[in-house]
């Protein structure tokens, strides 16, 4: 019975905050909600409580729909990630000098409710329901608080692009529901009609895949992403890259591979495209000077590797991909927050804006380096565990793909170190060494905690694998 709280609690608090828009921002409320949900997650998983919930919803045309939530395995891990990232995010916004109103917090919380719903839903309609709900608050967040002259256009592109994908999926859902007629939209019931059917028909499976790869995003469906990341306010960028991208990957595992296990071999050609996208995105990251763009494209590259690893249908590769989904969420959270600090404190736009950060602000420099190295997947960081496992599996699956994936890792090292080198070292430039007015201790604390988790999981990854194994 406690499981629906993951959705209802943030939703109600979110709506409540929207309604008290005009008042003084209640900065602590969001952190409290997501922190409480992290605690609830640990309470449920450590006490071995039943992590499933089911109730009737409605039936139409003789197909029943349930409210079915299930927080085990990858879904549980993603649930933990989303609430953890949100907690860090809220504490970060609260402790920095950013002025957001209550409706900003409220919309973020409503998006959290939707995200939790996506990771918990075990019924196809319910899944689609939450999948779409996430978009609405994000749309308003970017539209109202976004930056840059082209924010409306970027926002609309992002919105229409992802909705277009969703609509293809909805067409697939309707076809499955009312033509193949499963007993209900529960995943187990839907599997029974799709598994035999889809060994002969690939068109419908494609409808689902398009929705998911747009959300991740995988080349060539990534075009909405860099501008959306660039124009969004930082908290939204974090949600987009750390969590909404995971929605897509989670959906590939849970729904695409879950419903069409026999067909996925035919999609191997798609993996070549994805790997091409990986190299392509890495090269762009290497050639651009805009820091946000570097991280955006780096994200595309890393997600592409996870996507490919999921299709190896290999135990090690899959586990590695799951692990990396969690790890990438934390690393990218750290990177975006550091970019935000740089942007607000030192007016950094591109990698030539400042120099000598290591001299001026060593703590921040160290944190940037830790997250940078985690992005490169250096041993001792969590990314190494996941990436090693994925590359390992990929090598035994398809050598060509593995070679190009490894090339991507090398490129990732190049662009990350180029970024760090340009900002951290050299003569101090554009930084006022005497300017100590801006207090960043709260921000640093959040980043340090996240960095510690990243390193801890790099040394001792077992807790995550335990959650996955459930």
């Amino acid at each position, binding site marked *: 019975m406690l499981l629906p709280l993951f959705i209802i609690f943030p939703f109600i608090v979110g709506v409540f905050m929207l309604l008290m*828009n005009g008042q003084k921002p209640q900065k602590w409320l969001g952190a409290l909600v997501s922190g409480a949900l992290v605690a609830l997650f640990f309470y449920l998983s450590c006490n071995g409580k039943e992590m499933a919930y089911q109730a009737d*919803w*409605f*039936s*139409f*045309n003789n*197909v029943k729909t349930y409210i079915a939530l299930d927080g085990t395995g990858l879904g549980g891990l993603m649930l933990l990630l989303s609430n953890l990232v949100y907690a860090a995010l809220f504490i970060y916004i609260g402790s920095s000098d950013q002025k957001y109103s209550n409706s900003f917090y409220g919309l973020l919380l409503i998006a959290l409710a939707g995200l939790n719903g996506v990771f918990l839903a075990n019924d196809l*309609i319910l899944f*689609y*329901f*939450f999948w*779409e*709900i996430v*978009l*609405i608050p994000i*749309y*308003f967040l970017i*539209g*109202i608080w976004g930056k840059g002259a082209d*924010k*409306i256009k970027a*926002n*609309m592109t992002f*919105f*229409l692009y992802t*909705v*277009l994908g969703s*609509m*293809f999926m*909805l*067409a697939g859902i*309707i*076809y499955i*529901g*009312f*033509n193949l007629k499963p007993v209900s939209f529960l995943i187990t019931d839907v599997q029974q009609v799709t598994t035999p059917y889809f060994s002969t028909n690939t068109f*419908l499976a494609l*409808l689902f895949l398009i929705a998911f790869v747009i959300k991740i995003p995988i080349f060539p469906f990534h075009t909405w992403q860099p501008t959306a990341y660039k124009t969004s306010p930082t908290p939204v960028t974090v949600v987009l890259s750390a969590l909404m991208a995971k929605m897509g990957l989670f959906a590939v595992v849970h729904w695409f591979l879950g419903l069409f296990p026999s067909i996925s071999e035919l999609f191997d050609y798609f993996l070549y495209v994805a790997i091409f996208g990986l190299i392509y995105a890495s090269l762009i990251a290497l050639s651009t000077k805009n820091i946000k763009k570097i991280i955006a494209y780096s994200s595309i590259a890393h997600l592409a590797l996870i996507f490919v690893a999921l299709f190896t249908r290999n135990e090690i590769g899959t586990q590695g991909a799951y692990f990396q989904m969690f790890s990438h969420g934390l690393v990218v959270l750290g990177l975006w927050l550091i970019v935000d600090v740089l942007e607000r404190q030192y007016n950094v736009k591109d990698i030539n804006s400042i120099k000598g950060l290591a001299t001026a602000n060593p703590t921040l420099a160290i944190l940037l380096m830790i997250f940078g190295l985690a992005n490169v997947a250096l041993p001792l960081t969590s990314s190494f565990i996941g990436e090693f496992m994925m590359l390992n599996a990929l090598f035994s699956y398809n050598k060509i793909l593995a070679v190009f994936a490894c090339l991507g890792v090398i490129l990732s090292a190049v662009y990350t170190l180029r970024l760090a080198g340009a900002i951290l070292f050299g003569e101090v430039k554009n930084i006022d060494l005497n300017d100590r007015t801006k207090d960043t201790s709260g921000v640093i604390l959040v980043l340090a905690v996240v960095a510690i988790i990243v390193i801890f999981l790099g040394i001792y990854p077992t807790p995550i694998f335990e959650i996955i194994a459930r």
Partner: protein
Amino acid sequence: MNTIIISALSGIILMFSGFYIKNSRALTFISALMFIAIIIGGVFELNGCKMLDGRFPNMIGESLYGVSFIIGLAALAVFYLLINKDQFGKVGNHVGEYFALIFFSFTGVAVLGQFNNLVLMFLGIELMSIPMYIIAGTNKESLKSTEASVKYFLMGAFSTGFLLLGITFLYGATGTFLVENIDKFDQNFEMIYYLGWILIIFSFCFKVGAAPFHMWTPDVYAGTPTVFTSYMSTIVKGGSFLGFILVMQQFPADAEYSGYLRVLLGTIIVLTLVLGNFGAVTQNSVKKMMAYSSIAQAGFMLFVLFQVNSVSKEALFFYTIVYSVANFIIFYTIQQTKAEKYEDLIGLGKANPFLAAATSVALISLAGIPLTGGFIAKFMALSIGGANAENLVIIVIALVMAVLSMYYYFKVIIHMYFKEGQSNIKTQDGLTTALLVVGIIVLIVMGIFPGILPSFLATPMW
């Protein structure tokens, strides 16, 4: 039967009351009470208490579905009257007559819900339409309004011709006007029989604004005073669809020609969706956008006709209610802001956050995004089409068009919230606020508990 009688009587009463009562608000409230009387009459009928029982055995049928649908439409009408209570007086001086016309038109709607005879169906359609032709031209100062009236009348007369010819053909092939005997046709007149059906379908397509018979819609909706456009695009459209589905349910679903019918319907749907949505995208006028949007929405509603059974009837009812509530809210905003172009809405999010939020919910519902009834409505409608494997392509097209529709619906949101500017829209009074809250609640509750509304259908209360 009850609903027809009460509605007609209300029309007559209001026609004369216009002489004595000049206050448009008072007239509005009286009309709202009369619509509540229609609802009560309908509820009595559902439970078997009928006025004039059995006097017209071959004319009025016993369709509980039709009665429940009319009750739903009457409830919508109450909402419509109350939310627009300040608007009727602004159109002109003959307020009493406007309400009389609305009731006469509603009588037609009520007839369309209960006909048992093609002649009565014809009567219902004309009864519904003719007052609307007049209402379209109520703003005598405006050339556009007059144009709307004339255009509506001419096009309507044209579709009447189709309908009459179709009924004649069906009569020729079957020898009866009775709806339940429609499918018993003489094999020698097969061609004429199906031609009759096609003509009837065409004429209903005129009424619901489906392509390629939609041409009148944008000009008429834009020219008609907004307060009546709101009625036209919701209750009249709902009534037309009610008649449409009731006559279509007599079409033999297993006939060898039913495949052709599906092709015909599919073509109409695709055309409607494409022309409606592309038409809306290119508009600068919000009202014209809403006119094209109503064409596009008709495209979705037509999906329920693919297989007429209790499920599709439920879907149509659900769609009509949800779509109408959203439309009422948006048209209310258009009137309040006197919005001609999108730019007139700039700053509404700051000036009147509540109205902007209500409008956003309504737009999101029209766009068919979850958490609102609009999503469930589209889902239900499409699922009826989804029962045929061949329809997958049409469904994909429909959903891609739904994405296009988000472009123009969200353009309103962009102007309300994302663009810098001033707006001086004052807050609305308590009753309107309460109605807007009711509207939002209906839209969201329908999105979360979609089972509620269909459970009211055709179920007696005691």
